[in-house]
């Protein structure tokens, strides 16, 4: 297990980078929000590998849970606003 750990960590870091680039570059807003949540999720796995489960739980609960939900909520409000604009 321990000789696999550097490779796993490298893979996770690579995933994080790709997800971050997708979050910035992608044209579709839901995909970008999900990618930003994925960055936090992978970060929490990295915290777990670094033997800090408490920080990992905080990151998973706030970074990837609450923030993603909040961004979707705001996205829903923005779309509702557009909807209102169409029917004056």
């Amino acid at each position, binding site marked *: 297990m321990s000789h696999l750990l550097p490779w796993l960590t490298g893979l996770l870091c690579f995933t994080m980078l790709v997800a971050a680039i997708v979050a910035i570059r992608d044209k579709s807003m839901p995909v970008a929000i999900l990618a930003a949540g994925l960055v936090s999720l992978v970060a929490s796995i990295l915290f777990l590998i670094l033997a800090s*489960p*408490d920080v*990992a*739980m*905080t990151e998973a*609960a*706030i970074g990837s*849970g*609450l923030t993603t*939900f*909040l961004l*979707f*909520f705001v996205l*829903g*409000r923005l*779309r*509702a*606003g557009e*909807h*209102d604009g169409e*029917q004056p």
Partner: protein
Amino acid sequence: MIKRFIAVVLLAAFAAVFATLLFGYTPDTELNLTARYYAERTAADLGAANIVTAIVVTYRGLDTLGEVTVLFLAASIVGLVLAQDTHKTPRARVPVGELLTTGTRFLVPLILLLGVYVFVNGHLTPGGGFQGGAIIASGILLTLLADPLKHFGHGLISAIESVAGIFYVAIGLAGLLLAGGFLDNRILPLGNVGELFSAGAIPVIYSLIGLKVGAEFASILASLSDTEEL
């Protein structure tokens, strides 16, 4: 062009700083003085299996009270700023998908249960009041996602929040009177390490923190949800 150049230079500088940190890093072979004290004395002194929780709730309990206060101030200010405009003009109902509605009905009880589990077991397993509170708040946010017109009672939320805060400070003062100092957990019997009812007042304090943090996040979300366009 110049903007992009400056951004690249800044990124390179960051990379240099982090590379220096990374290559100059050698892991300690043994715990340093403070860490060793906590690692050796926590179970014997406070009866908590999770050392991080013992530090957050008891050894550095006053800092945690400060953190909760900061969160409370943030929630109050959000409520104050957004309270200006709460007249009820019915918003156009945006159709929400069947998948979200059914999934929410199934998931929200489980999410709330997980949140309660996390903060009640804060002294045994990783996590605690802040994590559990955030999980509860994300459950509440999910119900808001599924039904944007749902209205949460601000009275109930602020009642939970205030009662939890008052009891938190009261337990701290009880520690001052009955045990070694402010927020000392030894006002209740310590019990056996690893059991649910152990570690003195730590589970009580962390449950109160969990309720308080959950209520504070929920009040922020409810204010955001109630407000009309700014």
